[in-house]
């Protein structure tokens, strides 16, 4: 009996294991609750009722890096906090991603010329998504998370953050 490929095509999705895993990972990112400054207020507002991160599956904020796979650097990173933050990043299991939320994390923001502020998180961490704003509104945080979702689903989009 002759097999009609069109019919088959419509009913089956062929994919690789990696692609399937990336879809699963990108729809259930567990962020690490590590809010530094004002951006953490907008991060909490995004997780709360009105802007509701849980529509996308990202509302599970874990307290320990062992159980989280996304580090949202929400706020100003100072040199004193740089060491602990780098350790938190190292202690997260692979695959892990970093979002630099707010202009302080992107480039030091209004405090870039201060003696105690790291001018941009990319100095110490490989960053996947930068979210502009001071503080970025919850909608732009959600858009940043969706950008990360796209990046996870097709890894060839972004540069290789770690030699996976």
């Amino acid at each position, binding site marked *: 009996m002759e097999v009609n490929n069109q019919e088959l095509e419509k009913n089956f999705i062929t994919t690789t294991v990696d692609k399937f895993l990336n879809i699963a990972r990108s729809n259930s990112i567990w962020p690490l609750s590590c809010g530094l400054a004002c951006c953490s207020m907008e991060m909490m507002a995004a997780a709360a009722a009105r802007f509701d991160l849980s529509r996308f599956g990202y509302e599970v904020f874990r307290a*320990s890096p062992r159980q989280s796979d996304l580090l949202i650097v929400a706020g100003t990173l100072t040199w004193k906090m740089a060491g602990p933050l780098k350790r938190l990043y190292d202690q997260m*299991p692979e695959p892990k991603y970093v979002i630099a939320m707010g202009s302080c994390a992107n480039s030091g923001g209004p405090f870039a010329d201060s003696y105690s502020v790291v001018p941009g998180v990319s100095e110490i961490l490989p960053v996947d998504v930068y979210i502009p704003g001071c503080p970025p509104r919850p909608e732009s945080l959600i858009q940043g998370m969706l950008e990360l979702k796209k990046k996870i689903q097709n890894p060839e989009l972004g540069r290789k953050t*770690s030699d*996976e």
Partner: protein
Amino acid sequence: MLHEFANVGLLLFCALLFPLLALGTAFFIRPKKPSAEKAIPYECGVDTVGETWVQFRISYFLYALVFILFDIETVFLYLWAIEYQQLGLFALIEMFVFLFILLLGYVYAWKKGALEWK
């Protein structure tokens, strides 16, 4: 009679299968990149201070003991609850006697202060 136990064996097999399946696939799929910093104990991002293997207080152990005591009691209640219909009045009374004895144990523990945290 033997095949009765076959069901229990099957249940045990399935009970083992599920966790092994879940952890097993995770074990094969996840990327493995061990590194020195990852192995350091996590303490809110800073180093641990002093040695962490210390003699801690006995009250932790007592609390756990009292908990296990009443946890096992519930395990027995499960078995009884399953066969509740078939068992006659005798089993009902039997179980309440069992519960009463444990209630005495509970009151004793309470009076001895095992429930307050010292």
